């Protein structure tokens, strides 16, 4: 009986492990197949301080997708660090520009949260490794 319980515990642990491998690391960015998203930063690569991020949204037929709301979020890799936020404005058809003040050296993740005019939401993340002052 004890052996069976031990087996159950091990099986449950194994299940959690496999399940997390399959699901936990495959977080969907939520990008719609109808909309493509490209982004760039200025300066490139980003540096400590205020960085400008430009997001371009294009549709299935390469047309620009306007009228979306694009918000930016910068997170450090360590828990407990204050995230930074910004809003991007549409500066041209389907082109959105906003700034983030990345204040500390290290690894950052910039998240682009996009709400299309039809209410559909997309998320995309940009990894910045080893952000430096110069």
């Amino acid at each position, binding site marked *: *009986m*004890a052996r069976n*319980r*031990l087996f159950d*515990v091990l099986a449950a*642990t194994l299940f*959690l*492990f496999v*399940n*997390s491998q399959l*699901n*936990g*690391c495959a*977080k969907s960015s939520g990008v719609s197949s109808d909309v493509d998203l490209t982004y760039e930063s200025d300066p490139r690569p980003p540096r400590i301080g205020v960085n400008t991020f430009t997001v371009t949204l294009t549709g299935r037929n390469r047309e620009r997708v306007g009228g979306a709301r694009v918000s930016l*979020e910068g*997170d*450090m*890799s*360590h*828990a*407990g*660090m*204050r*995230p930074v*936020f910004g809003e991007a404005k549409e500066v041209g058809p389907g082109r959105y520009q906003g700034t983030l003040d990345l204040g*500390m*050296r*290290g*690894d950052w*993740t910039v998240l682009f949260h996009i709400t299309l005019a039809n209410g559909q939401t997309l998320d995309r993340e940009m990894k910045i*490794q*080893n952000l430096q002052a110069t």
Partner: protein
Amino acid sequence: MSSLGTTSSNSPTVPMEAPRFDLLRVTIIGRFLRWRHSRTVLQIPLLVVSVVMILHGLVGPTLAPKNLATVLTWVHFRGALVLVLLCAGNFFCLACPFLFLRNIARRVFRPRFNWPRVLRNKWLSVVLFVVILFTYELFDLWSSPWWTAMLAITYFAAVLVVDGLFKHASFCKFVCPIGQFNFIASTLSPLEVKVREAKVCDRCTTKDCIRGRRGVAVEQATASADGHTFGNTAGLVILQRGCELALFQPRKVGNMDCTFCLDCVHACPHDNVGVISRLPASELMIDPIRSGIGYFSRRKDIAALAIVFSFGALLNAFGMVSPVYALEAWLGRILSVSHEAPVLGVIFLAFLVLEPAILLGAAAWMTRALGGSKSAVVPLAVRYSYALVPLGFGMWLAHYGFHFFTGLLTIVPVTQTALSSIGVHLLGAAQWTWTGLPTRFVQPMELGFIALGFAGSLLVVHHLAEEDCASQPMRAFLPWAAVCVFIGLASVWLMFQPMEMRATLMGG
């Protein structure tokens, strides 16, 4: 019942004995802690939090600042742990959720073996402590919810396996790296579980505090915290455990190896065990024979733990400031390697072996040469290594306190987000602007912790020097004071380095 300055006939003279406060005499807290189910009541919430944390770590957001596993473990748990150790005692071990699960498992699995004699020391746990520090840096545990969750799962599994096979609290005493951290840090805590009146113990014939109480009442035994029979020949069941860590209260000195489980409090038929105030670090200034431990000065394994604890504090903080990356890149070029592991291995060797060997060896040699101490270099180094514990603890406090205070409120938006993912919406939109105290307020606290540790180390060194070289204590004091100054300055320097949180050490 407690009295001023009472010492046991077996206890050493503790310097600067202060009027004693007994936590168990405090109205509500004391009554709760004396209740035999208090430990379980404290463990259950922590177990629930652990399970939630593990699940969120496995299936929640992959970004560390947004996941309960990383936020709770690396911001709140670590910070709260060191602050409670500083202000009270080893209360995390009291509320340890791993032991709650173990106690349940022991209702099914009966441990049959005694812990191997060759491993009845701290060497294994010291190695595991170093392994955890190493994997923390190598796998950037602080940035990975998944790995953090796996660490917690591994911990639960290890407890179940070790204590499922071996009797008593083998995991706590000989394996658990967190426990060893707590044990050595709690030598600086202001509270200690100890006897109230030595004379009462002198008259005691049952010694329940170490032996526990056995009986035939099967129902009661089943309801007890640990219902296994423990293989006693009379077929009696344990009604109340005695100390599982082999600490015999009348001869127990200090907090080393004490999990604050309060089994001795519950077991004592004379209500003669309290949680009593004492001068923090006083147990580091003396070297009596300690129940379940022996002499500190003869325990190279505990000295190694003290060294890893003290120098590991600097190493752990060093891993998060800019110079470490320059050093790693330089070492990578010298060693012609692109993988982080060998480079980290060299850094760990330098910080945890070479640096302590040089500093402690030189100071011990000078203590002999200048102070005329008759002890050999290694025993001197072992004896004085305990004096570095306050400095190390100051650095742990500064480091973990920084994350705790600057990230204290991040638990709010992370919990909000976690709850909203299962359809529970609390307090509106996630308050991501809630973080904690500004760095400018926290930095003076960090310096205060380091200064406190520095003062504590100097105090211990001075006391040891007076005992070693009564005629010329300053000559024995100065070399060790120089070591303390060196480590103290290194700690302050580290605190003022620009923080840099990178998971990609070699690539950048």
